[in-house]
């Protein structure tokens, strides 16, 4: 349903459960690219300033249903896609996305939204050139999130689904279901699976190596003097 792009830029997405280590990895990838003087831009799920007020209000007052939850996130994504991701790809940037449409596919479908409807919602988005999936066993990512003294938020814990009567149990069941959705997407979406159990620097070395093989990185350096 989603189209491949033919823009001069490149799009790299990272996906995985909360606590899978994906944000650390994409941060290190960005640092590496910046230090090599490349045109790189980082964008994060659920961060459009335009939609933030609506999302915050909806979440705080628990006004969201599965459908409106899905729609506010799609709106946020569309705003970032139309105003940042797409223009930057056209301008020849490497765009790094911490979570992409696959996050919505997982969460919204777990929340009971019609899979075809959700897919259609995001059909305007281009397929990333690389989509990394950081695969950590469920217990490990749960342990990383729950190990501290977690303040799980209502929707983050999936409390709206009535899976359990406390946040921690609900979070475990919810994350388990999202993990199952991710696993299904590995083949259908062509995820590049990274072993999230390896040491951070080992994973990063593998990520960089893979990116180097797939993308002609030197061509993304700033031209001329900086």
């Amino acid at each position, binding site marked *: 349903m989603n189209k491949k792009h033919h823009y001069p830029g490149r799009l790299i997405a990272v996906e995985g459960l909360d606590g899978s280590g994906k944000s650390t990895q994409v941060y290190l990838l960005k640092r590496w690219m910046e230090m090599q003087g490349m045109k790189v831009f980082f964008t994060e799920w659920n961060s459009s300033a*335009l939609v933030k007020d609506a999302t915050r209000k909806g979440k705080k007052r628990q006004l969201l249903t*599965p459908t409106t939850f899905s729609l506010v996130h799609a709106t946020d994504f569309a*705003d970032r896609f139309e105003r940042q991701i797409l223009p930057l790809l056209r301008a020849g940037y490497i765009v790094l996305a911490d979570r992409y449409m696959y996050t919505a596919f997982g969460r919204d479908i777990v929340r*009971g939204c019609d899979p075809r*409807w959700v897919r259609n919602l995001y059909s305007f988005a281009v397929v990333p050139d690389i989509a990394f999936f950081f695969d950590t066993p469920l217990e490990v990512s749960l342990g990383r999130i729950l190990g501290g003294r977690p303040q799980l938020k209502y929707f983050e814990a999936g409390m709206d689904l009535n899976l359990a009567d406390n946040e921690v149990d609900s979070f475990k069941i919810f994350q388990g279901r999202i993990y199952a959705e991710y696993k299904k997407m590995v083949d259908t979406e062509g995820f590049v699976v990274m072993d999230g159990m390896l040491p951070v620097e080992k994973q990063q070395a593998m990520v960089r190596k893979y990116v180097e093989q797939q993308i002609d990185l030197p061509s993304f350096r700033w031209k001329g003097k900086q």
Partner: protein
Amino acid sequence: MKTTLKTGKQHFGTPLPGVGLSDLKGKLIVLEGADGSGRSTQIVMLKDWLENLGYGTVNVGLKRSTLVAEELEAAQQGNILSHTTRSLFYATDFADQFENNIIPALRAGFVVLADRYIYTLMARDIVRGADPAWVKSLYSIALVPDAVFYLRVSPQTLVERNFRKDDMLSYWESGMDIGLSRDMFESFMKYQRLIQAEFRRMEATYGFTVINGNRRPRAIHAELRAKVQEVLTQPK
């Protein structure tokens, strides 16, 4: 396109999680038409008439959701929304009202008078270049109304009525964002014709009742009243 359920209401193809349609006893009546087509006037008259007959009524319209109405208005003012974002923002506004106002009111047996519905939203998106299949799927979560009345008014009359009301043409109702013309009057005429053409296309698919909106309000009301009466006496 329509999904037939055994009895009662239908949606346009996509069921909503947690929203059952089997016990919706009320009626959903939609009025569509441009600004200046007389929609609001007709809704006021219908509401008076229905309440006089003892029917509970609820009014809904666009950009009235608790969730995003304010944010949507602010973004519109700033004129910073790209097309897909704008479409999705409106869809969020619609879905919020749909689940929190329309469905509960129908469940309680009210007559819901909708001052515009998904058709205006779809027409606006399509005129702005959105993929019709995408838009159709987006709004396939909506309920098929019991009746849809489209108040068709000639662009010339719309202009006159808009000037009489506001002394100016609205930026959005003139479609100024799509650059049809730098001249606002010309843009308004072109934009309204595009919207009307889209409504004509949808008419065949969705079965609107077209009402000649160029007449006096009382004459239009009499026609609407007779048609709404028929809807109300249909078996539930």
